């Protein structure tokens, strides 16, 4: 328990540092006094706009998406007993990606609230398919992963087809496929907040039961952990969070897959602890990845998914070799 609180404390400090870096650094330089004045809602209007209207929404978007993906991956991995559980890899984000592609192509015309709601609904359809397959007796983790990857590939093909058909070949489509927080404003974040809340609220009551699911459905049912219901709720929560993440940032890869494994290395394998740690850990990894994507090639930038893949791939290989 002591270790758990130490890890939480360290992650909170890292997050505070990340938020300050995200708000302070950028192509337009701010000296310390102007920056802190702006942070404290004082000082000149240009610094205020720069910090609160341009940089801070992007920081908050990264925190939100990182949390969504970390928790979503954790719920998928624990409820399906599958170390490959990830909202993007299992196709949950795929449905949301198709919705976003339709919006970018101009086929789907709706406001930002409607777009987030449709993304979450599409993600829930993918979640429903995964929940259906995962509840079938005797389906192996490898087969479930294959089904998930196939759904994901299908959705990616449809989304790419929609973008190609509409001739959306701009930086915009690259940012969407690779994931990006560029130019995100409060109007992009606020519609996702209710779904973020719904996903976490759905996940909370089943957290205690997810450990029992590790024993297999028959034993979990015998303990009274209601595996089918628990899994359905966990995957639905994962779908809501995964869909909200895609609506805000596009397809940010590796975060949902990697974070639960990193959390397990830090705090052991109690799902409750892993899930709680996945919140600040997912937020921190995504925030720093975005800072790297934004600042490394200033004034231009690369998709954040490129950075998460660069960090995530070697880490995942390490985890797979040492822990799994």
């Amino acid at each position, binding site marked *: 328990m002591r270790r758990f609180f130490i890890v939480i404390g360290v992650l909170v400090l890292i997050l505070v540092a990340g938020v300050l870096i995200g708000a302070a650094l950028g192509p337009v330089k701010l000296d310390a006094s102007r920056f802190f004045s702006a942070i404290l809602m004082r000082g000149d209007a240009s610094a205020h706009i720069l910090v609160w209207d341009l940089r801070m929404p992007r920081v908050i978007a990264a925190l939100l998406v990182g949390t969504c993906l970390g928790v979503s991956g954790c719920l998928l991995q624990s409820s399906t007993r599958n170390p490959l559980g990830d909202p993007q890899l299992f196709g949950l984000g795929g449905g949301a990606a198709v919705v976003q592609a339709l919006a970018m192509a101009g086929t789907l015309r709706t406001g930002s609230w409607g777009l987030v709601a449709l993304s979450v609904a599409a993600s829930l359809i993918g979640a429903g398919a995964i929940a259906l397959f995962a509840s079938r007796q005797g389906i192996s983790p490898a087969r479930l992963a294959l089904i998930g990857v196939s759904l994901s590939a299908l959705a990616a093909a449809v989304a790419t087809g929609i973008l190609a058909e509409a001739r959306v070949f701009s930086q915009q489509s690259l940012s969407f496929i690779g994931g990006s927080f560029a130019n995100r404003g409060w109007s992009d974040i606020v519609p996702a907040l209710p779904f973020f809340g719904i996903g976490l609220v759905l996940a909370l009551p089943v957290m205690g039961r997810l450990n029992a699911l590790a024993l297999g459905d028959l034993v979990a*049912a015998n303990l009274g952990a209601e595996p089918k219901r628990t899994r359905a709720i966990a995957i639905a929560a994962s779908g809501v969070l995964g869909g909200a993440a895609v609506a805000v940032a596009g397809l940010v890869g590796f975060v949902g897959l990697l974070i639960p494994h990193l959390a397990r290395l830090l705090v052991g394998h109690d799902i409750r602890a892993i899930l709680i740690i996945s919140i600040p850990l997912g937020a921190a990894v995504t925030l720093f990845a975005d800072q790297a994507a934004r600042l490394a090639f200033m004034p231009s930038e690369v998709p954040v998914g490129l950075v998460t893949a660069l960090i995530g791939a070697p880490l995942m290989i390490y985890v797979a070799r040492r822990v799994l």
Partner: protein
Amino acid sequence: MIVNLEALSFIRNDKSVLSDVTAAIPDGALTCLVGPNGAGKTTLLRLLAGELKAASGKFLIDGSDSSTLSQKEVARYFSLIPQDVQPPPHFTVFELVALGKYEPDKRALWWRLNESERDAVNSYLSRCRIEALSQRRVEELSGGEQQRAWLAFALAQEKKFLLLDETLDGLDIIAKQSFFRLLKEIASGGKGVLLTTHDLDLVAQFADRVIVLNSGKVSYDGSPGTNLQALFAPNNG
């Protein structure tokens, strides 16, 4: 306490798996359920655990009709360790056995073992003679050690009956004998133990009662002092 099976039947895909099964499973005794592959042993255990519903017939738990109880209520009497149970990834033996104390309806999100529950878990580890392994990962243990860990987990649930489905498969003869002795000891402590197995010699040596299933029907229910092999249907394994 006694569990009475009364004309229990189960049908899967229009095929009769259990037919008119009538038998008794008392507490304080090691009852072995034997029969060829496909005889319906696993199905019977899953019916008792409340996982499956009988097509007809019923079983009485100390006189109460189980068909009036929910799956959760039935499960309060039976700890089930299924066939081919997989060790939970990364769990230590202590953590596995401690999960036996988890009661989803009573425990809050942040449940932790209290002092007396911790003592109880340690006592079950000691009873199954695996206290020295308590901090080892379950997946790293030998087959025999893993089965003892699962048995301690079943005991930690403190239910009246243990349902063990082919728990001894893959163990060597020494480990099997040792496990049978342990089960006998647990049964004589007051638990009802129902074990499905193919080891007829060990059944004859250790069981208090034997139920023989052939093609979903009970062909024998009584003491093990008989030629069990002869009771198997000739056209089955």
